[in-house]
């Protein structure tokens, strides 16, 4: 089984978000970049398939050379090979198109992406990829077993979960639950050393067009001061009369 894990290179969850160039660009100065958390759950599950079922695991990212440390980290966790498509990640559709092209050419059986990236929160790349490849797709995936070309996936739905039977090729948009937080792997020294000599192939992009273009950013208005109260009666009265939410 060949698995492709899509890795988004995103600011660490604790990052302060600021913009530059007249609020048109994300300020990357002083920001620590990490593997998108949802993608890391997927990568960890891919490692399980590698170790238990002999799968080959490749990781892929669409972005400039600055994203390579994030791919190296994925290699240090245990992926066999990395691919970087050498073009800035502009909008969801153009990224999906680049990824789908590699996924198709490479004949991957399973393509794993996160439910959404924590930067742009688009949540559209895995679904678009599946449609472009013509593969089955399970979003908000919290469980996956594969036997031969058959797959059983669990999807989180509002208020519960749903178990689905499907077949490969399959694309999933995964999230926490696919593996537990405690299953996540911190690269060890051996992994980090090995990652340096694993292949990281740079591919040039195919022709693609962005369908959307983010023109500018803004930050939410600063929050007003909190009203501290001493009693629950006061709180109920404020929620009823002032905030009008109860």
């Amino acid at each position, binding site marked *: 089984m060949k698995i492709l894990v899509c890795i988004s290179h995103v600011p660490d969850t604790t990052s302060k978000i600021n913009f530059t160039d007249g609020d048109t660009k994300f300020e990357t100065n002083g920001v620590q970049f990490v593997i998108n958390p949802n993608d890391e759950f997927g990568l960890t599950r891919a490692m399980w398939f590698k170790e238990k079922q002999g799968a080959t695991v490749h990781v892929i990212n669409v972005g400039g050379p600055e994203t390579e440390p994030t791919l190296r980290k994925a290699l240090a966790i245990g992926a066999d090979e990395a691919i970087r498509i050498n073009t800035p990640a502009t909008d969801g559709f153009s990224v999906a198109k680049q990824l789908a092209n590699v996924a198709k050419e490479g004949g991957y059986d399973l393509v794993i992406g996160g439910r959404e990236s924590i930067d742009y929160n688009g949540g559209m790349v895995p679904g678009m990829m599946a449609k472009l490849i013509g593969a089955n797709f399970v979003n908000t995936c919290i469980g996956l077993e594969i036997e031969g070309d058959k797959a059983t996936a669990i999807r989180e739905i509002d208020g519960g979960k749903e178990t689905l039977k499907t077949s490969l090729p399959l694309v999933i948009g995964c999230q926490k639950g696919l593996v537990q937080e405690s299953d996540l792997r911190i690269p060890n020294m051996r992994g980090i050393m090995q990652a340096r000599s694993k292949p990281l192939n740079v591919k040039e992009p195919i022709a693609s067009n962005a369908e959307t273009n*983010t023109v500018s950013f803004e930050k939410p208005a600063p929050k007003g001061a909190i009203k501290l109260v001493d009693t629950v009666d006061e709180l109920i009265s404020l929620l009823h009369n002032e905030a009008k939410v109860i």
Partner: protein
Amino acid sequence: MSVLVYTESEEGKIKKIALEVVAYAKGIADQMGTTVTAVSINANDISELGKYGASKILQVSNDKLSNFNAEAYADVIAQAAKSEDAKVIIVSSSANSKFLAPALAVNLEAGYVPNVTALPESTSPFKVKSNVFTNKAFASTEIKTDVKIIGLGKNSYGLKENETSAANEAFAPNLDAHDFDMEIVSVDKATDKVTIADAEIVVSAGRGLKGPENWGMIEDLAKTLGAATACSKPVSDMGWRPHSEHVGQTGKPVASNLYIAIGISGAIQHLAGINASKVKVVINNDPEAPFFKAADYGIVGDAFEIVPKLTEKLKEFKAQNS
């Protein structure tokens, strides 16, 4: 040329978020000088859709579509969009809408922007504002394609009424075998609980509760308010509560009217995930907890004393005000 809106239903009943997307679609239709067409799949009672601005309702009734199926539903909406020659399509931000919208976008070669918070700043060029960086910022994005898909963020437009006389029309889509490649084996869903996605009020608790055995009072409070229960990341990581209750940047987003945080310090990732909620209340014994900087109302004190008292007083309040 109408604005097409996908109105979700569950067990034949139109969902509340569907009414909000209809109201929003009406707002856009007014900007563009056109009308709203709703497409509903296996809904029994569609009378409310007109109240929020739908002029035409395409009703799909098909037993094969009795369970949500992203591939087939996206196909139905795409066919409805083509038959209406709709250039703007509105969906919600529910798990199901987010599941089907990317396929719909590829099918219609449409640019798609999710988590949209307001009516377009302009419709030519078509520019919308959306939440990005998990509520830490807004982006203004131009959709450049001929057909456009907007995913409206929950609770960002409101249920604006706009009484319109709606014409119903049966709509029979062409479904192909590929639409049913996936088989639903089982659905495991608590029917007696309010879900975080649908909830108007969410009661959430953190490590301050000291252990899973103390959640009884949180559930009591939630029940009194008709609220959903949620928790912070450490609580779900320790297995005190199920992952499905974890709210925050890597958990579920919350966009309720009221969010009550009990014994949650307010890590930046947590605050980001719940920030789209309208009113935030914090109850914490540590006055230095970062949540006090993010909330609207707060009580500094021991949750074990305050929460039962709050529940009791709310019961009295409900009895008087109902």
